[in-house]
C-alpha cells in the first residue's frame, strides 16, 4: 500500500522545511451539535500549494474551511494557520464562501465589491485625493486586471454572468495579497468552459502571487490537471496526498470502510463508483 504522506518529491520537501506551512492540522476533530464531523485529521498545506478538498456531501468540507478561518473551534487536536492559531491571521487569508451569486437587482459595481475586500473593514471616511486612496485604487485595478475582469468591472455585478461574477469575487479575495486563499466550491455554478478557465486562472494566481490555495470541489475533473495535492474527506476522517495516490480504489475503500472503485475514462477523467452518498461526477460531459 502507498503511504499518501510520502509522495512529496525531495525538492518539495526541502521547500516545505524552509517555510512554514500555510495550514497544518494535527489529529484535529470537530464536533457540531453533539455530532463528530471528522476526527484524527492530520493534513499539511505547503506554501503556494494548490490543494483540492474533496469528499461527499456532509463530509465536512466547508467545516474544514470554517475551522481554518477560526469560525469553528476544534474539539480535539491542534491546528495552525500561517504559523498562528486559526482566526489570528484574518488579514492574510482570502475567503470566497459557497454559492454566492448576485441577482439582477443587485446594483453594486464589481470594482466596489473588490475595493471592499481591501478597505471594507476600515472605519471612517477616507479623504479624497489621499495617497492611500490612490494606492488602493491602483491595487484594485491591478487585481481586476490579473483575473481578466477589466472589461466589465464597472457594470452592476447583478447583470454579469456566473463566470464573470466568480472572477470578480476571486479578485476580491486576492486584493489584500493573502498568503492563503480559501475557495468554497467556486466552480459549482459555472458551465464547463468557465470551470476550466477559472481553474487555470487559480493555478496561475497560485504561482504568480505565491499564495497557497485550498479549493473545495464537488468534481475533481475540471481541476485535475492543475492540482498539487488533494485532501479527501469521507467516513469521518481524511486522507491527504497527490491526486494519483489518493483517488485510487484502494485508498478510498480504506477511507470509506466500504468497497469503492475508481475508474479512469479514456480522456483521463476520474469516476468514483460505489460512494454511499452523492455522486462524485454529476451530469454528462459532452463536447
Amino acid at each position, binding site marked *: 500500500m502507498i503511504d499518501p504522506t510520502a509522495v512529496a518529491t525531495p525538492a518539495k520537501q526541502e521547500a516545505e522545511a524552509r517555510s512554514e506551512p500555510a495550514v497544518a492540522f494535527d489529529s484535529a476533530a470537530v464536533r457540531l451539535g453533539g455530532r463528530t464531523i471528522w476526527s484524527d485529521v492530520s493534513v499539511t498545506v505547503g506554501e503556494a500549494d494548490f490543494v483540492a478538498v474533496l469528499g461527499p456531501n456532509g463530509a465536512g468540507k466547508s467545516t474544514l474551511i470554517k475551522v481554518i478561518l477560526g*469560525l469553528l473551534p476544534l474539539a480535539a487536536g491542534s491546528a495552525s494557520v500561517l504559523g498562528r492559531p486559526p482566526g489570528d491571521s484574518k488579514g492574510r487569508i482570502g475567503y470566497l464562501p459557497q454559492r454566492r451569486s448576485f441577482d439582477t437587482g443587485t446594483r453594486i459595481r464589481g470594482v466596489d465589491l473588490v475595493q471592499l475586500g481591501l478597505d471594507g473593514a476600515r472605519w*471612517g471616511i477616507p479623504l479624497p485625493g489621499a495617497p492611500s486612496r490612490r494606492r488602493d485604487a491602483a491595487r484594485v485595478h491591478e487585481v481586476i486586471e490579473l483575473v481578466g475582469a477589466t472589461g466589465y468591472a464597472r457594470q452592476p455585478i447583478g447583470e454579469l454572468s456566473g463566470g464573470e461574477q466568480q472572477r470578480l469575487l476571486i479578485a476580491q479575495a486576492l486584493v489584500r495579497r493573502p498568503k492563503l486563499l480559501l475557495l468554497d466550491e467556486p466552480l459549482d455554478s459555472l458551465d464547463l468552459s468557465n470551470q476550466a478557465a477559472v481553474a487555470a486562472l487559480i493555478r496561475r494566481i497560485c504561482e504568480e502571487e505565491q499564495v497557497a490555495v485550498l479549493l473545495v470541489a464537488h468534481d475533481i475533473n475540471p481541476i485535475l490537471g492543475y492540482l498539487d495535492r488533494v485532501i479527501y474527506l469521507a467516513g469521518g476522517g481524511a486522507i491527504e496526498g497527490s491526486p494519483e495516490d489518493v483517488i485510487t480504489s484502494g485508498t478510498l475503500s480504506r477511507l470509506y470502510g466500504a468497497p469503492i472503485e475508481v475508474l479512469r475514462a479514456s480522456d483521463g477523467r476520474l469516476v468514483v463508483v460505489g460512494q454511499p452518498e452523492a455522486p462524485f461526477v454529476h451530469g454528462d460531459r459532452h463536447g
Partner: protein
Amino acid sequence: MVEAAIFQGLSWNPVTDLRELFTYPFMVNALEAGTIVAVMAGVTGWFMVLRRQTFAGHTLSVIAFPGAAAASLAGVPLAVGYFGFCGLGALALAGIAGSRRSLSAESAAIGSLQALALALGFLFVSLYHGVLNGVDSLLFGTFLGITSGQVAVLLVVATAAVSLVAIAARPLFFASVDAEVARAGGVPVRLLGFGFLLVLGLSVAETSQITGALLVFALLVTPAATAHQLTPRPLLGIALSISLALAVTWLGLALAYFSIYPVGFYITSLSFGVYVLVRGGRALRSRRRATAGLALEAA
C-alpha cells in the same frame, strides 16, 4: 395670520413668492426642519434600500404613530413619544433579526409587530378623551407649528445619526452587500445590523414629524430607491438620495404653503413622480439597447 398667508396664494412672481416663503418664522422653521430631515432620510434610506430592510423601516414608521399618540395622552412633547417608541421598536426588530429565523418567519414576526403598533395607536387615540384633533397630522404630517426648539432637537439627533453612519460607512456597506466575507474579514456584522436599526429608528422618528407616520416612505424610501436606480456608485448614490429628498421636501413645503392641501401629499406625490420617471426612463433605455443589440446581431 397663518390663514391669511395661506390664502394669499401665488403672485406668480418668483422673487416675491420666494421672499414670502421666508417671511413667517413658522415657515422658516418648517424649511429648516425639512432640510435636516431630508438629509438624514437620504443617507439612512440609501442604506435601508441597499439592505432590503424597507419592511422593517415601514414597521418603525407605524410604531411612530402610537408613540406620538401616547405622548399626546401623557402630555409630554411629541418628540419624546416618537423617539421613545421608534427606539424600542428598533430594539424589537433587532431581537427578531437576531433570532436567526428564516426570512419568511422574520417578515411574519415584523408584520405582527406592525399590527400591534397600529392597534396600540388607535387605543391611545380613543383613550384621549375629547378629540385628538391632531390625529390626521400624526398620520399624514404637518408643517405648521414647528418650534425653534424642535428644530434644535432634530439637528442634534440628525447630526449624531449621520456621523455614526459616516464612521461606519465602509464596514456597513461591506456587511450589507457581502455579510459572510465581511464577517470573515473581522467586520462586526451583527453589531452593525443592530446599530443600523437604531439609527433607522431615529430617522423614522424625525421624518414622522414632518411627513406623518404613514408617509415616512416618501422621504426615506422613494428618493433612496430612485438613487439606486440612477447609479450603482455608492458615494454618488448617497449624494443623489440626499439631493432628491431635499428637492421634494423644499418643493413640497412651498406647494403646501401656497395651497390648501397637506404637505405630506405633495412630498409623497413629488417623490413618487420622480421614481416613476426614472424607472420608466431606465426601462425605455434598456429596451432601446436590446433593439440596438438585435439590429447589430442581424447586421
